[in-house]
């Protein structure tokens, strides 16, 4: 059952080949068997899952529900789930049981009727590119358990890649959906900023954070994303605009589609094997009628430095709420209120989160604000303008998702800057707010390679359409790691 698409699982439920309870039990058993090797879940919510599965079975028996009713899903542990621990990968929130549900949790589980298997491991407060900053320990890549799965949505991708869940939610502030999807042979999409509600999603950098999904195909991703998207009055940056029929658009022909390859994304620093796989995928799309041209995003090399001013600045402000008073970790044996704040935060946050809070505090401090924060906001505009110009000439921008395949656990933990450079191809889409996705386009030495598609604002349907057509012509996305078959 764990190799079937969401559409096939939905058909199986309707044809009574299996019930949602049986399907859920199958996945819970796989989690129990395989997750000790991966560490992809922080919490497994077996009891609630079976109750939701029974409710879904009852709904289906009445002839109600949709495609997603009764299908299991894993939630990244950044989304608030009422009555269930919501840790955000941090010691700070190790004892935090959310008092309310995120909007996407309501939509996917209460409305669409999906079954929540548990909460996935992640880099602490989504700050990381390897899932090594989690308070709950690193996640292993199912393709090679001595390597990282990418981050910050490392638990989400490891769970789906190993067949421990059909799909999982994820979030992306600088590449945290796309880079881990690329390193684990998955399809992951970060929609346009404002497309999916951020209500109940624990904040990292509010002008960049966006929720999305990781799945084994563009079609699976389209079904789940469709249920997540849409206006939410509870999120002040939610966009009030109709959502396209993402599933209905999958089969559109792509003949005549103009695809731009940014020369900066194929420059020095890109591993040769990755370049070769991405160019082979370009040939496949060209064979399907796409028109390929070289473009330039001249300011994209500045996206990493821009991001490491903007994101820490916003994070230092967002994470100021953790004070040891209202919820979260509280230090013992303190003498006064200042010591309570400092000790609670010093103990509750890990090293990477502390680094980013300090960078953010520094770039926002008197005397440095103009040189760093204001300058970065200006360069952010230049990066946005690059995309605006590009989308006047092409429909879609294509490049690699990451510079290389998955690296070894521990290889970059002592060097923050080399870790940050993992996201060199993904950050620009967050700064501009445009939708972007990663999908698998082959392997190098048995490790998955991802290609990235970036679209114009609100063009999620087209991204998924192109990815789906590519996946009909190839079978990279159907490969599963042998050890977890």
């Amino acid at each position, binding site marked *: 059952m764990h190799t079937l698409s969401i559409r096939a699982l939905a058909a199986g439920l309707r044809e009574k080949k299996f019930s949602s309870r049986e399907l859920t039990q199958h996945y819970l058993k796989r989690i129990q068997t395989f997750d000790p090797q991966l560490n992809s879940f922080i919490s497994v919510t077996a009891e609630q899952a079976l109750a939701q599965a029974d409710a879904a079975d009852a709904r289906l028996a009445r002839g109600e529900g949709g495609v997603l009713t009764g299908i299991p899903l894993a939630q990244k542990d950044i989304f608030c789930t009422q009555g269930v621990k919501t840790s955000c990968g941090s010691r700070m929130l190790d004892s935090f049981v959310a*008092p309310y549900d995120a909007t996407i949790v309501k939509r996917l589980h209460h409305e669409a009727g999906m079954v929540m298997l548990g909460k996935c491991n992640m880099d602490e407060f989504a700050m990381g590119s390897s899932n090594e900053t989690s308070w709950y320990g690193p996640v292993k890549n199912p393709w090679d358990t001595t390597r990282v799965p990418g981050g910050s949505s490392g638990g989400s991708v490891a769970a789906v890649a190993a067949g421990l869940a059909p799909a999982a939610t994820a979030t992306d502030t600088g590449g945290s959906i796309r880079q881990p999807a690329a390193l684990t042979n998955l399809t992951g999409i970060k929609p346009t*900023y404002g497309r999916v509600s951020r209500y109940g999603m624990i904040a990292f950098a509010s002008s960049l954070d966006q929720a999305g999904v990781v799945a084994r195909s563009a079609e699976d991703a389209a079904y789940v994303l469709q249920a997540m998207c849409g206006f939410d009055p509870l999120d*002040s940056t939610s966009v009030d605009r109709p959502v396209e029929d993402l599933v209905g658009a999958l089969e559109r022909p792509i003949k005549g589609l103009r695809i731009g390859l940014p020369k900066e994304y194929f420059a020095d620093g890109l591993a040769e094997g990755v370049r070769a796989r991405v160019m082979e995928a370009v040939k496949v799309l060209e064979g399907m009628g796409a028109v390929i041209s070289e473009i330039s995003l001249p*300011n994209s090399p500045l996206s990493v430095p821009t991001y*490491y001013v903007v994101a820490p600045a916003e994070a230092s402000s967002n994470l100021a709420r953790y004070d040891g008073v209202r*919820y979260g970790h509280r230090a013992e044996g303190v003498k006064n209120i200042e010591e309570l704040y400092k000790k609670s935060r010093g103990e509750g946050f890990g090293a990477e989160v502390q680094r980013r809070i300090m960078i953010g505090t*520094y770039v926002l401090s008197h005397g440095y604000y103009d040189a760093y924060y204001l300058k970065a*906001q200006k360069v952010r*505009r230049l990066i946005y303008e690059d995309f605006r110009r590009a989308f006047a000439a092409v429909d879609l921008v294509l490049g690699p998702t990451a510079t290389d395949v998955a690296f070894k656990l521990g290889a970059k933990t002592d060097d923050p800057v080399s870790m940050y450079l993992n996201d060199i191809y993904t950050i620009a889409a967050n700064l501009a*707010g445009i939708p972007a996705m990663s999908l698998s386009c082959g392997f190098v030495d048995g490790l998955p390679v991802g290609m990235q598609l970036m679209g114009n604002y609100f063009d999620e349907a087209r991204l998924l359409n192109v990815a789906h057509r590519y996946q009909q012509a190839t079978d990279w996305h159907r490969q599963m790691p042998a050890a977890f078959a």
Partner: protein
Amino acid sequence: MSLSIEQVRQVAHLARLAMQPEQAEHYARQLSSILDMVDQLAKAQTDAVTPMAHPLDLHQRLRPDVVTEPDRRAAFQAIAPSVENGLYLVPKVIE
């Protein structure tokens, strides 16, 4: 741009982060290397560029001025580290 140990201590104080003396040197080195990378921004020509704070050109929505939230005080206090009689407890602030 390199940060001195003294600057790191000051930033940690502003951010209300307790720091062991031996950590300050380590952080000074790492934060300096991050700021060195960030210094590439100086190369960009941005004289006439309007800063971009947000990806979407949104206006803050207004909603009708009516009460929409139920009273959840008990639920919120249940997750607090220390409460008494409906109040959050902190160390004594006024001597």
